[in-house]
């Protein structure tokens, strides 16, 4: 049993994890400067959905064979995304000359070690890392807010198809990863999960406001990683510049925590076979995704639909029995 606070922290990181290199860029691409409206609606929709999902018994569902298969596939998909995002972030901005295998291998070793230590260790780690995350998010907000230009949010032109797609994608990106956490916990506190989700969504919403408010939708759309470009604009006290490599640690924390939780779910589902799955998975991830831009582009374009399928399945899971 993990504490309510840790549940909130894990829900916070899980709700944010799919936005780096995917969610933010995807949503801005679909709905331009009205992204702030679509994400807001998407987050509220996700909150309502999560409220009902927390009433269901995912723990028992995870014990069944179909449950194990479904949750494991979802967890594998998310770990795969985390490894790709980790590799992209590292190879594009930090270790340009380092081969991808040397980047993702330590990432997987770290996850394997974390999973081996178990959920209490992952929980403790999350409690430590969240302090760094919140401190950086606060500093970033203080830096970004004065540079926001209100005119960048206008004109508001609604394109119906993209508007709905953007809302649904936001809901899927922020809500679906939390299903993995719900599957791992025998008892969970709905309020804590919802609190973590809410703070996670607020932080992403503020990031989106900063991106569109500073860059404008046109420039934000041109960038492959607008969230990283935004970090390049940070100047502290008029002399601390080029600190983006340090501030990007918030995305690393989200990716790491999500990968740990998802991998732990795979371990629970597969038990002794976990190490074999790990080896096969690393090879698949390296040869088919991190080393293949077209396949990672498939992830970029279709993750919203794939997550949505999992979300729809989760809606049909039985409700938790109340005593």
């Amino acid at each position, binding site marked *: 049993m993990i504490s309510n606070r840790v549940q909130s922290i894990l829900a916070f990181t899980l709700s944010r994890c799919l936005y780096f290199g995917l969610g933010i860029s995807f949503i801005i691409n679909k709905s331009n400067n009205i992204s702030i409206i679509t994400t807001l609606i998407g987050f509220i929709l996700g909150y309502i959905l999560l409220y009902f999902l927390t009433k269901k018994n995912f723990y028992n569902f995870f014990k069944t064979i179909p449950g194990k298969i479904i949750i494991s596939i979802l967890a594998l998909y998310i770990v795969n995304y985390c490894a790709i995002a980790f590799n992209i972030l590292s190879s594009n901005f930090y270790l340009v000359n380092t081969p991808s295998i040397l980047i993702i291998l330590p990432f997987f070793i770290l996850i394997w070690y974390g999973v081996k230590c178990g959920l209490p260790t992952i929980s403790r780690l999350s409690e430590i890392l969240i302090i760094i995350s919140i401190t950086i998010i606060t500093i970033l907000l203080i830096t970004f807010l004065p540079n926001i230009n209100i005119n960048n949010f206008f004109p508001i032109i609604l394109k119906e198809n993209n508007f709905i797609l953007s809302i649904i994608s936001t809901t899927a990106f922020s809500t679906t990863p939390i299903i993995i956490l719900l599957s791992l916990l025998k008892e969970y506190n709905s309020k804590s999960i919802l609190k973590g989700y809410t703070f996670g969504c607020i932080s992403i919403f503020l990031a989106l406001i900063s991106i569109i408010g500073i860059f404008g939708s*046109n420039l934000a759309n041109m960038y492959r990683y607008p969230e990283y470009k935004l970090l390049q604009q940070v100047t502290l006290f008029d002399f601390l510049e080029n600190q983006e490599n340090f501030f990007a640690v918030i995305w690393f924390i989200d990716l790491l925590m999500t990968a740990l939780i998802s991998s732990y779910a795979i371990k629970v589902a597969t038990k002794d076979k976990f190490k074999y799955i790990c080896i096969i998975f690393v090879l698949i991830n390296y040869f088919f995704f991190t080393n293949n831009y077209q396949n990672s582009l498939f992830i970029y374009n279709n993750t919203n639909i794939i997550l949505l399928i999992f979300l729809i399945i989760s809606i049909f899971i039985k409700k938790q029995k109340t005593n």
Partner: protein
Amino acid sequence: MKKIILIIFIVLLTGCYDYRELNDIAIISGVGISKEDNEYKVIYEVINTEANKESSNDIKKYNVTGQDKELINAISKANEALAKKPYFEQIKVLLITKDVNILDISDYIFRNERINTNFYLVLCDDIEEIFDFTSVNEPNNSIAISNLIKKINYDKITNLFDFVVDNLIQGYDIYLPYITIDNELSLDSIGIYDNDTFIRYLNQEEYRIFKYLNKVKDIPIINNNNSIKIYNSKLNFDIKNNKVSIKYNSKGSINYLSNEYNLRDNNSYKEISKTFSDTLYQEVSNFINNLQKDNIDIFGITKLYNTKYYNDKLEFKDLKLEYDIKVDVDKAGTSFKEAK
């Protein structure tokens, strides 16, 4: 087992593979791109990391050049001319000549993840002359130019390279600071563009008014041998009823007076304020009206207008402009009477 994992992490996660000594990289502080005989000429201003800071004899920076018909080849040649690995993360300015099309060079810079695009585009006539100049104030010319840019209040986030290119892509007009050598490096004017086409430099009178509007402090306004300086100002564009009201509110302090004013009397301040408001009204309205005749909108008024009335898509010359210029002179310095 734990120790083995720890060793693997230490070796791999600390970035040893990408490790580079400071002396093995060429830190480029400024880049210049010009076009000569239909060829691109790329010049890097490189910081000499081996120079002794305290020794005045040591060369603090050096330039390398690459030239080719294609920009990418010119850059490659400049890179090859460097004995060390080029490092583009610390670029302060990108100097260009007026015949360089910004959009032609922007894609390469935009796409390259090793170039930190947080720098300013600056116009000049002769890049080699600028980079070869030895300033007494600052050994590195790119840093000197960057400091000058801060002085004219140009160091806003929206004047960075990415934002300038974004404005051009969206079809808006831009302006760039213009650097010359007049005993020292100096920002003499700004170059104005009609979208991506260079039009002209502002003359000294226009540049002075531009500086008022750009919140540059302590620029004097002279009227009949009286002078004030603006110490605080705000420029707003209020768009209502298909009209643009250009509102400039400022606070000024008296530089010197030749006419007799009783500065113990509050009415004198009102009188001085009105006189200088009228002067500034004339100057600002003439300046912006002239720009409007040329259809060059360096203040982004058209962008604001078309954002509000996005079905109209008017050009700058079609906009109806009104001016509301106020100068509130409220400081007399340490003297109540003119010293004559």
